[in-house]
């Protein structure tokens, strides 16, 4: 694989992290995810040992997950196999007010700084008596006790992939009060509960040390009997691992985007990786990771002044060159004419002409969620093509079949041929 290495800017912790599954990087379906189910809430209304055991059975029967259930020993100073955390790609935490011993706490802290995904349930915000700032530090919100029974639940962003197939979730159990300590895009509320005392965040996504976190503030015994609740947990596990959530739709918005021509595309994949496509420039302008877009600035009503859509995630790749795809002469800027697009199963294909030659550019997430694959197909005779991304930031652009040339790649493409580019923004760790 040839690769043009470019300065990595602003990636921070994202690149430090590596799910084990990323090691099994193949073109086909990725390896099953290993999930640690960490139990530690024996309250009769929660019974985490039993509920997580049932969850394990359900997850393994329905999804490509292998689960290890880890239970507290005695008063919870230790767990029966805390090392399972280190083996896992992601964890479900359902623990309440435990005081792990120093060695156990170290293993737990290590996991939460490893970049692995977390689905935290209900009492997880006050899981550790000797790590009281866990709620603010990891979950991004200060736990504030009970608020009473929910009258109704509201899905703040019903099209979020994490919510696919779970929109019929209802509860009348107690919900918590939280003081959110992060603002969008660092934290995105997905579910709010309303009761006489007001509106309270019930579920949200956030990030900690490059790890995706999904907090779901429900978990009474009866919730575990609800398909929508189980679906949310499974969706959460896909999502925190950047795997496409089954049943989630590709999100497409033609709107006003920063650093792009007017009426650019925001495309959100079912794994929470999104990109901006500029139909005038004729290329992908940037990729971000996490949530999708906030369109409120583009829809001001009578306020009239419009602002670009807000990105609900961190930009992990950016390129800026004019008309990046060239043919014939890499120095000549071609005429790009946008023709349309086609949406498929978690992929999109843009159609345009380049000096009259038809180009189809398919963009899809890599199966293990570590980046994007861009596949260019041509309705043209054999020719040399160049891809010149121009000034770049973030992850490198790589090209399995390209020759580094002119600040980009050259491809010698047969008639009716194609080439691919990869943007890989998460690396497997050593």
């Amino acid at each position, binding site marked *: 694989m040839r690769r043009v290495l470019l300065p990595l800017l602003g990636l921070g912790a994202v690149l430090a992290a590596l799910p084990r599954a990323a090691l099994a990087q193949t073109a086909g379906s990725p390896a099953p995810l290993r999930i640690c189910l960490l139990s530690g809430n024996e309250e009769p209304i929660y019974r985490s040992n039993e509920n997580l055991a049932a969850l394990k059975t359900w997850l393994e029967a329905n999804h490509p997950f292998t689960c290890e259930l880890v239970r507290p020993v005695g008063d919870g100073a230790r767990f029966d196999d805390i090392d399972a955390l280190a083996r896992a790609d992601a964890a479900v935490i359902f623990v309440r007010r435990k005081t792990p011993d120093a060695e156990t706490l170290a293993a737990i802290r290590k996991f939460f700084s490893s970049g692995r995904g977390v689905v935290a349930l209900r009492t997880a915000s006050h899981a550790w008596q000797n790590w009281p700032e866990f709620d603010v530090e990891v979950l991004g919100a200060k736990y504030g006790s009970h608020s009473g029974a929910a009258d109704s639940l509201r899905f703040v962003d019903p099209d979020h992939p994490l919510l696919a197939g779970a929109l019929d979730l209802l509860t009348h159990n107690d919900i918590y009060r939280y003081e959110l300590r992060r603002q969008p895009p660092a934290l995105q509320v997905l579910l709010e509960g309303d009761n006489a005392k007001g509106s309270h965040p019930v579920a949200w996504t956030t990030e900690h040390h490059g790890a995706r976190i999904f907090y779901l503030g429900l978990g009474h015994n009866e919730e575990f009997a609800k398909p929508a609740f189980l679906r949310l947990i499974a969706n959460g596990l896909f999502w925190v691992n950047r795997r496409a959530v089954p049943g989630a739709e590709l999100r497409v918005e033609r709107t006003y985007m920063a650093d792009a021509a007017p009426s650019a595309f925001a495309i959100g994949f079912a794994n929470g990786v999104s990109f901006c496509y500029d139909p005038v420039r004729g290329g992908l302008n940037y990729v971000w990771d996490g949530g999708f877009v906030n369109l409120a600035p583009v829809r001001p009503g009578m306020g009239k002044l419009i602002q670009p859509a807000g990105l609900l995630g961190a930009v992990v790749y950016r390129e800026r060159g004019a008309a990046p795809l060239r043919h014939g002469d890499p120095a000549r800027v071609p005429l790009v004419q*946008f023709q349309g697009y086609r949406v498929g199963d978690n992929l999109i294909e843009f159609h345009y002409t380049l000096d009259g030659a038809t180009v189809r550019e398919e963009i899809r997430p890599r199966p293990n969620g570590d980046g994007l694959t861009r596949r260019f197909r041509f309705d043209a005779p054999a020719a040399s093509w160049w891809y010149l991304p121009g000034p770049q930031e973030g992850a490198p652009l790589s090209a399995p079949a390209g020759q580094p040339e002119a600040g980009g790649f050259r491809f010698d493409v047969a008639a009716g041929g194609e080439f691919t580019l990869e943007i890989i923004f998460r690396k497997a760790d050593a």
Partner: protein
Amino acid sequence: MKKLVVFFALLDAALAAYRIETVPLPSSLRGGISAVAFTPQGTLVLATRYGEIWMQAPATKAWRRFARGLNEPLGLHAESESVVYAAHRPEILRAADTDGDGRADDFQALGGNWGLTHNYHEFFFGLRRDRRGNFYGALSLESTGDKARIDPAQTRGPLDTNPVLTPSFHRSETRYRGWAVQIAPDGELVPLASGLRQPNGVGLSPDDELFVTDNQGDWKAACGLIHVERGDFLGHTSSVKWEPGYRAEDVTVESLWRRCKGPAVVFPYGPMGVSAGEPVWDLTGGRFGPFGGQVFVGDFTSLIMRVALEKVARAWQGAVFAFLGRNDLPAYVEGERLTPGGTRLAFAPDGSLYIGQTGGWGGGADGLQRVTWDGRAPPEVLAMTLTARGFALTFTHPMDPATLARPENYEFDRFRFYYHAIYGSPWIDEARVAVQEVKVEAEGRRVELALADLQPGFVYQLSVTALRTARGEPLANPTGYYTVNRLRSGEVAIGGTTRLPRPGEFTLETRDAPAERTETTEALVAAGEKVYRLYCVACHQASGRGLPGGAASFVDDKSRLAQSDEQLLQSIAKGIDGKGMPAFAASVSPGQRRAVLAYLRAAFGDKTNAKDADKPE
């Protein structure tokens, strides 16, 4: 027994005619209804401002979301259950379901060779398709309302920031902004006509002639229905810079005024709404009532107008009457009232009229309504046509011969407008025109009226409140406006129904009516009521309760009239920034503003509440 006779007489009176009902929308639909269409198979298709396209199966009434992610679609052409064309900001988008799952997966761009930036006001209105497959749409001007200069780095196509003549609040800094355009089936763009401002309605006549409604503003004295032909200049100056061979030094106000093609039918601001929408032709074959072949236009205020076009000396002109929304007494309209925001109309295959409503353009509510006819003709002026000496009126009912024969029962007032760079225009050169002769024909269903004077270049207001049907009923909508651009003889006025202001002429003080200068409250209030009914009623409503989410309610929000006279006069003159309240300084004189304020205080002010406000809680 006598009671029973009265009851039957009422039933027979044939008053109720139209029923308005709300059409329930799917709960996950987002954004106001920005386009309504039907496929040839009868499937209802909607677009929303937030970029969704929905379909409702005619038999099951089940909804499905056909497409999403469009950029503010404002028009639709529904070819079939699997192919829909949408007019959205960047282009025409052909959305097709190629795998039969009911949702579009293939999107093809057509046209799109017009300018596009980040300016919020770059709407693309449409969408109509003629028999040859050509599409028609219209591009709004950019607005300086956002006070943001256009960033050249975020501009599609050329950018030209030079004003034409004087800087306008509405500008055409990128290509073909303010133009009506044709897009060929292969996507080729043919710019047709310049001079549009906010052309929020594109229609094709049954003969594939293009009509566009435009909105009042600078260089636009009033809203109206404009007949568009290739090469026309339609009034607003900003867009002429994109005409081939344009040279700034050649252009003067007078040269543009001489070229300006005014509306075929002017919609006088106030009585005929404030913001006209899409024109649709009644081709229902009588299933929507007696107005077959006429044009219906929805206005942003709760109003649907009815336009009767005719060709006079080879050009279209005609009359406009209110249809629904001005006199919706229970006797004429059943069910609900019109919701404001309804600028999108479409006739369903069953002959009912659907109205798509959009908030967010200054009040109004998002929604969908449907109007059905119950088979009884409302008492109305069916048509108003120009004759050599005046006008002929036909009626939907036989009229009472006694009221019909009296010349004084027909009040004609004519007026015209300024062609100028100021928002809107006062009605100028107003005059009462006497009816000299009335000829009753067709057993009281038609009259011919000879006027004392008939000149081209004026709007003629007709008021027939005194007429009665043979059964003694008044007309549902007794006021109409005929735009006389031409006489039967072929005599044509330059500049449509506008003229240039004479040097130093346009000072508002010169046109205060005597009653508006009066100090006696009663006379001032009476004068103010007339002003209110002309300019304010469309948004604030006769009840003073305004529009939900839009124009203020003086009744429910007492803080409005708690403001000082000075504050309120300022709001009337200058408008309210960021709200729908326009500036009336150009169209309402200072005397009229004082009068309307006196009326507001008399009609809606609440003295008892002022006392209550001092009470401790």
